């Protein structure tokens, strides 16, 4: 072979350069909305961050100061109760889909879960409204948590299924060959092996439902007070953003921006922590 045969033509090199630059430019275009949103939300919201925001109730119109402490606490409990219901059920469904994937029932369950995750959240809100709000007779935090749990369930189930499927089958065989019953192999060996992946999936799903607004409008509604009971309406960050951002009072608009930046921080921090946690696990292997 002639050494000249290995030389790459200048045209070929220019083409290569051009395409790489094009790809970098497109990647930057994709980043613009994210950076713009973050910049805008924090520019508007951060100046109104203070201790009062987290500890005080909203002040009546015309008075300055006040905070959205009730919405912060309300969102926390709405998501907590949703997690207590939705996460264990989601994980169990995910285990069923992964470990008993050959049964006919698993096929039906998988299709249902996929359909459920495609249902718009406002429809699930109406469902929670007719299932819980109407029978009880008034709006409640319980109904809001129920709606969030229904949104959470398919996300957790799918993540769990996918993480469990990454655990090689010879790990399960090794457990069975020790004379451990299959259900214990699944719960005490396979699930332990997959725990960091499942934790990541659950944390990201929780951060997502914390920002859901539509289903809360007809369930938990809103409140000017601190949440006291599951059976009373409760304030939440997304619903407060919705109502305060549109209000004609500057003070309330500021609170809405502060709430928006708190919510964005929550998602951002969860994402970053989970990225960091999964990477350090990868390196130790």
């Amino acid at each position: 072979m002639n050494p000249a045969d290995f030389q790459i033509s200048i045209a070929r090199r220019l083409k290569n350069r051009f395409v790489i630059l094009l790809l970098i430019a497109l990647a930057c275009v994709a980043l613009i909305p994210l950076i713009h949103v973050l910049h805008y939300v924090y520019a508007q919201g951060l100046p109104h961050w203070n201790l009062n925001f987290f500890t005080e109730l909203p002040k009546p119109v015309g008075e300055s100061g006040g905070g959205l402490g009730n919405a912060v606490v309300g969102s926390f409990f709405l998501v907590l109760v949703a997690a207590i219901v939705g996460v264990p059920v989601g994980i169990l469904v995910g285990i069923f889909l992964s470990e008993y994937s050959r049964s006919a029932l698993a096929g039906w369950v998988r299709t249902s879960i996929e359909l459920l995750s495609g249902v718009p959240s406002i429809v699930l809100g109406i469902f929670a409204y007719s299932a819980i709000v109407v029978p009880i007779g008034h709006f409640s935090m319980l109904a809001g948590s129920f709606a969030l749990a229904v949104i959470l369930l398919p996300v957790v189930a799918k993540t769990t299924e996918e993480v469990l499927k990454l655990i090689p089958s010879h790990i399960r065989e090794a457990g069975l060959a020790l004379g451990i019953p299959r259900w214990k192999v699944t719960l005490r060996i396979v699930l332990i092996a997959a725990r960091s992946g499942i934790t990541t999936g659950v944390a990201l799903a929780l951060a997502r439902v914390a920002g859901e607004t539509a289903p809360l409008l007809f369930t938990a509604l809103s409140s000017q007070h601190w949440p006291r009971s599951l059976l009373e309406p409760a304030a939440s960050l997304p619903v407060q953003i919705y109502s305060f951002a549109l209000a004609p009072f500057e003070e309330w608009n500021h609170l809405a921006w502060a709430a928006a930046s708190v919510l964005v921080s929550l998602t951002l921090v969860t994402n970053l922590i989970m990225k960091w946690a999964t990477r350090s696990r990868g390196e130790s292997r």
Partner: protein
Amino acid sequence: MKPIVEAKNLNAYFENFHAVKNVSLAVPEKSLVALIGPSGCGKSTFLRCLNRMHEEIPKARVEGEVLLGGSSIYDRKLDPVAVRRSIGMVFQKPNPFPGMSIFENVVVGLKLTGSRDRMDQVAEEALKGAALWEEVKDKLKKPGTSLSGGQQQRLCIARALAMKPPVLLMDEPTSALDPISTAKVEELMISLKKSVTLIVVTHNMQQAARVSDRTAFFLMGELVEYDESSTLFTVPKDAKTEQYITGRFG
């Protein structure tokens, strides 16, 4: 010597494929039997029939008889899960359980089958039995997956030994290891057979010749020849065995 494991007219199937054909073979107590043969000859499937792991594969089934210490392990009254506690197994790829420490890996079988007594002592004995104790005694809390490949395989051997099985099955235990780790595991096999009966599937005929007392040669699902290793590797009775061990096929 009396046999501890005895297969009688054993047949194994994957759906319609007849993988093991009418194999009868007796393994003397506290000896090492090597199963050799080309890929797909049924030696691994045969091994997996000896601890009822074959039936874990969907649509797989077994016919015939396997006796352990004289009683059938395919008795309808027996739970396959309980049978596996007296027959350990080591796999081709080292597979310590992820997310568990070295110590937890060794005792997990005991812990999850309900015998939690003296776990520290059992773990130490098992790790010593697997010739791993000196290397890991100061880092028992480290993840099992942090060890090297050869150490991981000895950890898997310790995990099986912790159940104190009279019989240990090994499915190509060194084929994923480097030569030095392979030599260590081979040494270990030779010392283990003083206390445990070993049945080892291997692709490596030199290994079979080095470590085994008896060797079984499988071809197309059939047991072609089964004899003392010193005889089988020097004066095989069957022409096919001779062709295989001299490297003419497989």
